[in-house]
Structure formats: structure tokens, C-alpha cells
């Protein structure tokens, strides 16, 4: 069984630190791509995600069992994009602005992510609007593996800090 370990030991956990570098609602331009960084997914990061949501499926955790299963090896749970969203974006990305409230998301799944995959993200704000005195941004995201295959694609809405 893989040991659960931080997906990125060098990750800046103080989201206030670069807060002044991040785009505000006024500055976010719908259609403009977000800067992203490739991320190599590990078995240990998958194991930590599984621990956090109580996943015990051997397909995600047990190399021998996963090898004998339908995917021929360990895969990540579909919702691993929760981690990938932060792993594939830099510290000045506006998704990290303190007070960003997630209002809802939809995701479509193509093929599973696997340990060893170098994952890339194409992302942008797609729209922004005001509703009941709250500032919303719609974002869309597509994650690819190193073979250029789509892992998953998603759309979400966040309420921006004021």
C-alpha cells in the first residue's frame, strides 16, 4: 500500500502571502487563459486524497489488486481534479484568493489519471456576473495527461471576495 504523503511539500500554504498579486473580480478578463504548471501525480498524493475522503477502493491504493483489475494498475479517483486544480496553478492564481467561495461545479470524466502521469491544465475564466450583490466568476478547466489525452473537464462558479 502506498504511504499517504503531501502532494507538494514545497506548496505555499499561506494564501495571504501572495494575495496582492492575484486578480480581483474587476481585473479578471473572461476568455483570458490562466497560467498553469505541469504536475506529476504520485501514488502517495492519491493515497492522501483517499484518506481525506475515506476512499478504500483497492483500485486506488493497492498495486497488486489494481494490476489485476480493469485498469491494469493504480488509478486516481475521478475527483482527483480537486487536488489538480491547485497543483497545476501558481501561487498568484485567483482561485487562491482568501475568501473565494465555491458555489458549484460540474465535471465530465474521460479517462482516469494515473500515478506517474504528468498532468497539464488548460483553464480560463469564461464569464463573470453580479447576482444578489455578489460577484461571480465562471471558470472552465480541462486536464490532460502527458499523452495529450483528456482526463476530465469541468466548469465551476466561485463567489469572489469583495
Amino acid at each position: 500500500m502506498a504511504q499517504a504523503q503531501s502532494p507538494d511539500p514545497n506548496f505555499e500554504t499561506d494564501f495571504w502571502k501572495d494575495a496582492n498579486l492575484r486578480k480581483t473580480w474587476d481585473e479578471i478578463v473572461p476568455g483570458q487563459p490562466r497560467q498553469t504548471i505541469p504536475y506529476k501525480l504520485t501514488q502517495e498524493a492519491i493515497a492522501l486524497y483517499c484518506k481525506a475522503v475515506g476512499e478504500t477502493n483497492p483500485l486506488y491504493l493497492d498495486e497488486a489488486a489494481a494490476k489485476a483489475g480493469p485498469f491494469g494498475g493504480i488509478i486516481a479517483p475521478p475527483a482527483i481534479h480537486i487536488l489538480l486544480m491547485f497543483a497545476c496553478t501558481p501561487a498568484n492564481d485567483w482561485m487562491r484568493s482568501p475568501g473565494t467561495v465555491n458555489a458549484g461545479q460540474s465535471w465530465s470524466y474521460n479517462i482516469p489519471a494515473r500515478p506517474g502521469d504528468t498532468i497539464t491544465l488548460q483553464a480560463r475564466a469564461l464569464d463573470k456576473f453580479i447576482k444578489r450583490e455578489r460577484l461571480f466568476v465562471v471558470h472552465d478547466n480541462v486536464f490532460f495527461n502527458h499523452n495529450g489525452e483528456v482526463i476530465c473537464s469541468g466548469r465551476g462558479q466561485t463567489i469572489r471576495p469583495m
Partner: protein
Amino acid sequence: MTTANFDQLKAGDSIDGPAFAVSRESIRLFCDASLDYNPLHLDDDYMKGDFGKTNFGGIIMHGMNNFGLITRMLTDWATPAGAIHRRLETRWLKPVKPGDTIRPAGTIKAKQTTAKSRWVVVDVAVQNQRGETVAAGEAMLEFPVSA
């Protein structure tokens, strides 16, 4: 709880998910696993303030923790039957706080056969210990035609 068999499934059938106890520790673990260290989930002092018209009164669980629990329920149900989790859409209705116990559940809404495959649409929801719905949405699972 119904088994994931496309032919036998019908609208109204239910899928049960596991109970999940939310604590400061579970929220912190989710921060570490997701790299989402938004102070909404960490900083009690910050959470004493107002967010527009909303005051949460303390740290709250990540909305995506609900998403992860719904996913876990769906894949635990579908994967043994050879079905594939293809889509999940959710919206958050109420904040979840340390001390809450939440549980996802699903209800089969519709079945659809397309030119190349078979699909099941599922209404999903997460409720807390008071029976309040904290998250709701819809999922789609594919039941490939067996060879």
C-alpha cells in the same frame, strides 16, 4: 440500496453512501490532500468576519469534500458492475461545520440508451445530521454494452 444492473434499474431506486464525520482534523486533512488552504477552512479569526451578507461563525468544510464523498458513493456502486462514473454536477446549499455528520445519497432519475452505450442519470444529495440538504446535484454513469 439497489445493485448496479442496467436492465433491472428503475427510476426511484436508491443508492446509499457512507456517513462522514466532519471535524477540524478532517477539514485540515482535506486542506493537505487538496492543497486548498483557503482561510475559510483554517482561520477562526478570519471567519468571525462577514462575507457580504453572510457570517459563517467559524471555519467551514470545503464544498468539494461533499463532491469527493458523492464521487466515492457513485464509484463504489458502479465500478463492481463495470459501469463508469462520467459526470457530476453539484451546488452547495448550506455550509458544513466541524461536529456535523454528513451522508451522500442517490436516486435513479432516468435511463437512456444511445447509439453506442447506455446511461443512467442519478439525482444526488448530501444531508447533515439534522436532515438538511447541504449539497445537491446530478450524476451520469455509463453502463457500456457488454461485448
